[in-house]
């Protein structure tokens, strides 16, 4: 005998679409459900006592009533005018619900996250399934979410809206930035993200040690680290206030100075050892970075 109660129900979009009518649906990536338009009850979307494995992100705003639910083994009670933000891949079960509930549900999938402007996704990456965010809303927060939900639904459902995709993407960003600020997700889990960047920064320095005498292109180092040159520059900027190309240039000049000072190499030799196409190119590179020409450096420093 199989025991269905132990099984998770996969909360796919197809399932959600088959059990309740949505208020608005944008290409199956952003779907809105609420109790006002189609008299949908929250338990017709997620049956009482059944456990669901979420595939998408959920923002649930409880306008009226009470809900007791279990999210990732944590018991949460929501009352009138409160909101909960549940990351994708969470496990969720509604345990008790008061007679009358009214809600707004904003569901967005992984694709919606990649549609974001700028590097917003970096903040979303900090939302992991172990975290569940919920809080009682004040009037201002409640009205903000309610108005935006309505405006988004209206926008999605407006016919002949030529640039609906831009509208939806922008609205999705607005809501996510609002959620991030509402729950202070940003400050909470920053430590984790920094250590990942720090790791990349250390790897970059190691690579510099290894390749500085051959490679001076940011592109090369970024490729070795499997990141974009821009991101590499961001990382070096965060940790040293200099961008990657400045880092490389300064590192190479330090090497050149070492060669001249400690090994008493001639400028021509240094230029060859550091893989410069010509002595004059090396001279200009050195002067641009160090502020003086290699010749002058030798004269002043090595006397």
């Amino acid at each position, binding site marked *: 005998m199989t025991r269905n109660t132990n099984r998770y129900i996969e909360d796919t979009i197809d399932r959600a679409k088959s059990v309740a009518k949505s208020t608005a649906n944008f290409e199956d990536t952003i779907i809105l459900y609420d109790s006002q338009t189609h008299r949908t009850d929250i338990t017709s979307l997620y049956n009482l006592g059944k456990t669901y494995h979420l595939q998408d992100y959920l923002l649930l705003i409880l306008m009226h009533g009470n809900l007791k639910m279990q999210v990732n083994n944590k018991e949460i009670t929501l009352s009138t005018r409160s909101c909960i933000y549940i990351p994708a891949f969470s496990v969720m079960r509604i345990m008790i619900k008061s007679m009358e509930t009214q809600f707004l549900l904003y569901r967005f999938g992984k694709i919606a996250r990649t549609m974001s*402007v700028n590097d*917003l996704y970096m903040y979303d990456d900090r939302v992991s399934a172990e975290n569940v965010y919920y809080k009682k809303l004040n009037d201002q927060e409640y009205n903000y979410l309610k108005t935006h939900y309505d405006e988004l639904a209206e926008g999605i459902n407006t016919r002949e809206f030529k640039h609906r995709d*831009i509208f939806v993407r*922008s609205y999705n960003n607005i809501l996510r930035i609002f959620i991030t600020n509402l729950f202070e997700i940003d400050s909470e889990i920053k430590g984790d993200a920094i250590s990942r960047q720090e790791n990349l920064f250390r790897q970059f320095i190691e690579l510099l040690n290894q390749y500085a005498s051959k490679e001076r292109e940011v592109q090369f180092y970024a490729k070795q680290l499997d990141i974009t040159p821009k991101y590499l520059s*961001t990382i070096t900027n965060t940790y040293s206030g200099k961008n990657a190309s400045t880092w490389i240039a300064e590192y190479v000049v330090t090497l050149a100075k070492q060669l001249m000072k400690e090994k008493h190499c001639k400028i021509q030799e240094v230029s060859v050892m550091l893989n410069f196409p010509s002595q004059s190119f090396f001279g200009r590179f050195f002067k641009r970075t160090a502020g003086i020409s290699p010749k002058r450096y030798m004269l002043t420093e090595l006397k």
Partner: protein
Amino acid sequence: MLDTYGDTYGYEDKFYCTDNIRHAAEARIQKSDVTYNENYRAVIIVQQGSMNVRVNNTLLKLKTNDYLAILPYTNIEILWSRCKLISLKVSSYIMHDLYEQLGIDVGIREGFFTYKHYHLTPRQAAILTHDYEHIKQEILTDYKSMKEYMITARLGVYIAHQFSILSKLEPVSHDDNSEIGNIFNKFLTLLDQHYKQERSVQYYANELNIQPKTLSTATVRYTGKTASRVIDEYVVMRIKIVLYNNRHNIKEVSDMFNFASQSFFGRYFKRIVGCSPRKYVSTTSKKLSK
């Protein structure tokens, strides 16, 4: 330009909202106030009343619910105004970046030295005004983080509405059909196609089958600048957009615009902008927000 005549709310030299403009009927605006800053795109929507402006030597009468987009390097002079208006001014680099991220093809002649004039319906004007109010609100709100993202996202909503509305409308035609007006328009179209390869007045004059001097006469008439200055400023604006995005190093940008050498590129840029490309990148390019 309008900043000093109304209530202005700005964020980091990137976004400005201006409204509640005082009657500028008597005040003929100083010559130095005439040009919109080269680095900005601006939109004016007249909510009520009317105003007369001169844009690139063309006289425009704006009335209630009129929409005027002013692109970088466009000369605008307010001659008379008795109206309520809103004006949104955004750094052109932010705008280009946003267009790119949103996958909008800005298209030919959307670059600079031009303007777009439309009559909107009251409903259309109201939608854009609503979005404007949201942008202004975000500028005024204290955020713990990501304020710029929020303003940008709001701008995205505005852009979605604006493009959807304008795509259904025909711009009000102010075509200057004089010979010299035609030369100017053809020149801008050519410039937009060839700016990456050609920077000499001679080339463009040859293509148009006219004397370089005639070409300069046309540009001076519409922009107050010589043809070579117009070419230089346009090229530099394009370079700045690429540099702002910070996706290419200076060598790559130099090659992209067909400069003989990086050093020549550096000198060219410095002559027009006043600082080296490297310095420009370090001070203005896009950085990851904290």
